[in-house]
């Protein structure tokens, strides 16, 4: 049986940035299990987000074409389990990572007990 594919949405008006992230992802061992979607404006982001339900989103949040407030409202209202990487091309500082995990009660209990820095994210495979 085929492994379920993980959909990744890269959103930025900047073509170099989008393609750069794509290249970085293409070096992952599990790249064949990823479906990479790209969006260059908020309309495309919202359409692909609601239609494809990406598991991972990489958003250039200072990009004026992305309209971060509109996107964040939609993201926070939506209940689907997704990880969000917020990157600003205008600033070279930290990247914000938001991991909305759905856990069972037992998993939540376990999560409260383990050291949090041992949590592995999807993007942290190297």
């Amino acid at each position, binding site marked *: 049986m085929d492994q379920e594919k993980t959909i990744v949405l890269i959103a930025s008006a900047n*073509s170099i940035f989008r393609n750069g992230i794509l290249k970085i992802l293409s070096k992952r061992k599990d790249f064949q299990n990823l479906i990479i979607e790209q969006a260059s404006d908020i309309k495309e982001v919202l359409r692909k987000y609601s239609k494809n339900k990406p598991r991972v989103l990489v958003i250039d949040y200072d990009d004026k074409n992305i309209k971060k407030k509109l996107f964040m409202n939609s993201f926070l209202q939506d209940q689907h389990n997704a990880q969000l990487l917020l990157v600003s*091309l205008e600033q070279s500082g930290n990247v914000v990572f938001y991991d909305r995990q759905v856990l069972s009660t037992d998993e939540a209990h376990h999560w409260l007990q383990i050291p949090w820095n041992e949590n592995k994210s999807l993007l942290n495979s190297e």
Partner: protein
Amino acid sequence: MKNEKSIRIFLIDNHALFRKGLKAILADVSNFKIVGDASSYHEAETILQENPVDMVLFDTDFYIIKNNEFSENILKNNLTKKVVALTFAKSRLEFLNAIKSGIHGYILKDEEIDYLIDCIYKIHAGRFIVSESMVEKLVKLLIEKSEFPINLIISDRELEVLSLIQNGYSNSQIGKHLFLSENTIKTHIKHIYKKMSVSNRKEAIEKGILWGILK
């Protein structure tokens, strides 16, 4: 296959994700060899001294004069044959400072990747390339340069004040530095603005560089 005719490229950008992504893209282009990348000039200069390249692609804050010196230095010391600004900066002052520092291309980061690759080939072949949206600025700068008013030459004292403005001094700091009152400095600045037909410090610096009276 990459051969000895490869264009040897070095990337400088303090945005790690953008830099690593660009590096991965360019590394796959035939005839491009990405020799290395760095997040700062200091780091880059050390590597380039050991390993000179054909082209440095760099992002910078051209408001900072020191950054212009970097491109001048690496060219003067033969650490690279070409220097290309790859930047989001679209202001006239940053553009002017970059041009003055002897760069061979000014490419905006929001260009398509194929355009950037094409520019790298053309610049390597000896052409000077500026992103299309910056061409209008370049033409305006050239027109203004030809309008240098030789009958309104700025005095030595005014030039001294203008240089201190360029170095970020406030009126009171200029006054202290030149042993003059703040009011006298304000009068000098008023005369400078009138002679240069400008209305603020930024415009005065811009024109000063354009006319060649500021570095």
